[in-house]
């Protein structure tokens, strides 16, 4: 859901309403900051060359 474009407050409000997220204005202000952080993380991960790498399979019990 996160995109390379910086998330605007209007986009955030539209998305959170679709997700059923609500709260007091001060609560939502802080949540907005956190969600912008999520979008920045997505950009950071998108910058990593993952070609050829399969997702980590943590639930296969390791034996080595």
């Amino acid at each position, binding site marked *: *859901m*996160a995109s390379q474009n910086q998330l605007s407050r209007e986009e955030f409000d539209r*998305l*959170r309403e679709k*997700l*059923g*997220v609500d709260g007091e204005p001060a*609560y939502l202000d*802080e*949540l907005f900051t*956190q*969600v912008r*952080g*999520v*979008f*920045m*993380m*997505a950009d*950071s*991960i*998108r910058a*990593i060359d*993952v070609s050829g*790498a*399969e*997702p*980590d399979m*943590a*639930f*296969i*019990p*390791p*034996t*080595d």
Partner: protein
Amino acid sequence: MDTLEICYMGAGDLSKLVQSKEISPVEIIEAHLTRIDATEPMLNSFITLLADQARKSARQAEKDIQAGRYKGPLHGIPVALKDLYNTGGVRTTSGSRIFDTFIPTEDCTVAAKFHQAGAILLGKLNMHQFAYGPTGENPDYGHMHNPWNPDMVTGGSSGGSGSAAAAGQCTITTGSDTGGSIRIPAALCGIVGLKPTYGLVSRYGLSSLSWSLDHPGPMTRTVEDTAITMNVIAGHDPKDVASAKVDIPDYTSALTGDVKGLRIGIVKEYFEAPLDPQVRKAVMDAISLLESMGAEIKEVSYPMFNQSQAISSTVLMAEATAYHRDLLEKDGHQLYDPVRQRLEAGLFISAAEYLRAQQARSIFDQQGRRLLDEVDLLAGPTEPVTAPEIMASKVMAGEQEVGVVGALTQYTRPYNINGFPAISVPCGFSDDGMPIGLQLAGRPFDELTVLRAAHAYEQANDWHTRRPPI
């Protein structure tokens, strides 16, 4: 024997006295209950104290030992569990009033193993709500307080475990570590905390934060007690889908005091991140000491360290939100606001982004494994700062002001991503008397080397013998 002396003895020493019947489990438990009475109003380590149950168990242990039925080094030794370890018949809150009356019907695997070993459950320990935070703040059961300065955080999420062990309230405590929640409070409270290799200690019966990042493990005052505890709790568990089938060694065999020939890598990127100069000096002094003891020190590079926060946070937030989704919808309004915000922020991560983070995690893991072809251990600070003030959102790391949450997890998260074993061992104090931790990480399932180096370093110092002024 003096009550305080009993409370600050390790399981290694106490068990010898118990086995030789020079001290009774009843005396040990009474000493700890006295210590808890004296210190708990300042620390708030426990959510549930099991005084009557512990006294009863101690009397039974005393009878068994007198009758020649000695079970081993944890028989009659007090243990307390982070309050997300299910305990049959004893409430398990996960640090939230939402579960204030939740009483599991069976023990988690770790609790069952402690019980079989004859350990005495002293209580359930305070924690950051649902383990979702690195400070040890909890509005439902009260904040945890650092024994070295009660105005400061214990670190979290296993904050009660850190303060209880550091203050002599309990001999052995446990934590769970998803982004650092064992090692952070261990470093900030001046104790030893081991995050074992992913899959080595069963997660069965623990409330999850992030399935693929959760690691249960011991928190104690000495490396010896950590090794003794690992001998009891490590091992395959068919009830845990991620549990590893590996041979379990005698972890105390690592306690040789010898580091000659060990190759220790110093990750250069760790020292380029924001870092308090006092922490830097303590850690570099520790590394120099290890070198003088015969270890070979080499600078190495872990290039993806700078992406580790993003990879870890994305995986953690997506998994935590998935795990707690029903709770969020039903009882979200009862959650601590920062916890609720983190859970709701996870809703904004798409499946594609989660899987890309898992792809990046695979590459991060491969980089780490290649590094450990060059060296036996990776060393650095556990924390870039000493314990911040309770409820602070920012902290100074040298000249730089940084966010508390990001700072406290910057060095610990990499080893949750790759699942490598990592320990925090005390390596000094700041000018204002707050503990500093050295982090050592090793190859998957090579806890022996991690414990060997940590023990040798510990024994060359007196940091672990110092007691908080409480």
